[in-house]
């Protein structure tokens, strides 16, 4: 037993002392967690987003004597949203308007160029006669078409899409207020619109809660796919292993020590990523459910088996790393970790169904309560990874050379 523990300790100590390993195994998943949460966690939270928009108002309220000016309300509303908030956070908009007396058309052309260059999210143009059209839309019984504002945007830009939606919502709100105040719309008759979720959730899952299980699994995955063949092949080719085989140490005990060390590293990974998720990003999920623990252990073992599989087939450490790189991308991206798996062609769906990562990931998410449904019925969570463990073990036993050839 002492030999198994000593080997496990060596494995852990070596990994933690190698800067390269530390980077890929700890720093990179942490970085990914950070960046994904910072970016996607913002969606829908308007305190943190900011857009640069332009308002061109061709209808000048000061020179009219209409009782009510919609354009002025719009301008004031947008203006107030471009003032710094009390919390000190950046305002929602930076509002750009043409200088008084300047050529509106030329300015519009300039602004369209800015949209195409990505410097502007949207340009709202209120054409001349807008206020009058609004009023006639309310008062005139025959022509209720109302006024139409033009919103220039770029549908390929996510920022533009979002800013446009927000502007449309703002205008809709203003419109609704006008209709209510003019009696065209009875608020008391309005239908309530409520939001609900399937499953037991009371509110939308937090992004960090959703993505943390995936990041943890990705850490295990990288550790298994790269760390295992790297270590084994390096040690074999440099005859580090041969020094062990001249002692009473058996291959079995070596594997036991190696496996124990590997799992210990996974525990370290888990602890660090969980702590980061919880204390830096406010993750609320707990991995205390027995099922979560079982799945985490199963995942660590599955990826370790894959690592051995690669080590068994690769001729050298470099070849092993190359194979690991090739497998890395498809297995990670076709797992639902980063992107939802919708609209994929058949040949890709085959990979998806064969990929053990997706089963483990969905089951893990389910066990911590951030996922309602899974791709396949629950037993597959165990069947597919166990199948891969068996296959990889078989190949390893038959093919892995423990000493360099003569």
């Amino acid at each position, binding site marked *: 037993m*002492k*030999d198994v*523990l*000593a*080997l496990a300790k*060596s494995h852990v*100590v*070596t990994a933690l*002392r*190698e800067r390269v390993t530390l980077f890929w195994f700890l720093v990179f998943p942490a970085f990914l967690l950070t960046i994904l949460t910072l970016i996607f966690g913002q969606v829908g939270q308007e305190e943190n987003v900011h857009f640069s928009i332009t308002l061109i108002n061709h209808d000048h309220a000061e020179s009219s004597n209409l009782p009510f000016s919609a354009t002025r309300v719009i301008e004031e509303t947008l203006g107030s949203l471009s003032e710094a908030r009390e919390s000190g956070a950046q305002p929602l908009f930076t509002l750009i308007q043409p200088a008084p007396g300047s050529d509106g058309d030329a300015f519009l052309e300039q602004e369209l160029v800015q949209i195409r260059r990505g410097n502007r999210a949207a340009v709202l143009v209120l054409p001349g006669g807008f206020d009058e059209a609004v009023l006639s839309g309310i008062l005139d019984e025959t022509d209720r078409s109302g006024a139409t504002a033009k919103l220039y945007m770029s549908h390929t830009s996510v920022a533009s899409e979002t800013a446009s939606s927000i502007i449309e919502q703002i205008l809709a709100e203003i419109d609704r207020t006008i209709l209510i105040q003019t009696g065209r719309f009875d608020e008391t008759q309005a239908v309530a619109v409520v939001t609900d979720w399937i499953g037991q959730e009371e509110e939308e899952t937090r992004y960090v809660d959703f993505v943390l299980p995936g990041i943890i699994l990705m850490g295990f995955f990288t550790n298994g796919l790269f760390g295992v063949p790297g270590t084994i092949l390096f*040690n074999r080719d*440099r*005859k*580090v292993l*041969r*020094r*062990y*085989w*001249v*002692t*009473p*140490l*058996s291959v079995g005990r070596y594997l036991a020590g190696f496996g124990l060390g590997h799992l210990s590293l996974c525990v370290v990974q888990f602890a660090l990523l969980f702590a980061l998720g919880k204390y830096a990003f406010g993750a609320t999920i707990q991995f205390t459910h027995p099922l979560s623990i079982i799945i985490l252990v199963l995942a660590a073992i599955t990826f370790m088996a894959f690592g051995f599989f690669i080590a068994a087939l690769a001729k050298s450490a470099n070849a092993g790393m190359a194979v690991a790189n090739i497998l890395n991308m498809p297995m990670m991206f076709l797992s639902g970790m980063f992107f939802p798996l919708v609209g994929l062609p058949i040949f890709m769906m085959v990979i998806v169904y064969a990929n053990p990562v997706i089963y483990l990931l969905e089951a893990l998410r389910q066990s911590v309560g951030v996922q309602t449904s899974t791709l396949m019925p629950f037993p597959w969570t165990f069947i597919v990874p166990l199948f891969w463990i068996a296959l990889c073990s078989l190949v390893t036993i038959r093919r892995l050379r423990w*000493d360099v050839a*003569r």
Partner: protein
Amino acid sequence: MTHDFIMKVSHLTKHYGEIIAVDDISFVVPKATVFTVLGPNGAGKTTTMEILEGIREPDGGEIVLFGQPMKRITRAAKQRMGVLLQEGGFEPHLKVREIIQLFASFFENRVSVDAILEQVALTEKAGAQVRTLSGGQRQRMAVGAALVNDPDLIFFDEPTTGLDPQARRNMWDIVSRLKAEGKSIVLTTHYMEEAEALSDSICIMDHGKIIAQGTVRELTGQLGEETLIEFRVDGILENQLSALSACCDNVRQDGGLVTLETKDLPSTMSELLQWSETQGVPFQDLRVRQPNLEDVFLTMTGRTLRE
């Protein structure tokens, strides 16, 4: 039943397909001695060592080790063996102390790590990572790892290759000390001085077979009563050399060094001087000496130890 040998190898055989690497060899390693295996490359020496170190399986033969007969080296036998491999790595990021501790954990019987570090003079380097060690320090650490179980039989596979003279001397001291402690040692080397200085008995292998066995004295004695004369020349022509063969035995030339054997020193010397004057070949560094191991080796295998 106690024997006075620690290991006896009988009819050991190993082939790779058609090639017979080890061809029915037998020898005995007496207790508390240094037994050296010599042989040029391809002689089967490496394979033999690998079989005895337990990392290769023989195809035939028997080994009696620590009084136990076995077909191949067993795990139990390894408990009492120590092996210093010819080449092999260590985890570069582990510290010296950690390496020794790791290897110690593989054995039931263990010497204290501090004692080992003391024995191989690495106490100050105990906390240094392997990758920071010099070649000599690394070799000493490897020796430490081989001694961690206080073995009765130790394999030193080319222990001083690539070491500077001081480090080589240190290694010789270690070997001598271990022998004095009653340990049995199997040594391989490319260095004649080493073989002569350390060995109690030697076996020479070539083409998978043992072609000579015995003490240094016995082996050199096989060359008969020959005395050797050596000298250097700047350049010698074929016909000049054949003229020399007329008067002397076993003339050979290696680069600028000419060696010849004789049983009758005085007459050969005068013939030699005559030859030099007649042929007009001046010689430098004229030496007369007794045959050594290198000569035995060369005679038996046609190659030098270092090839």
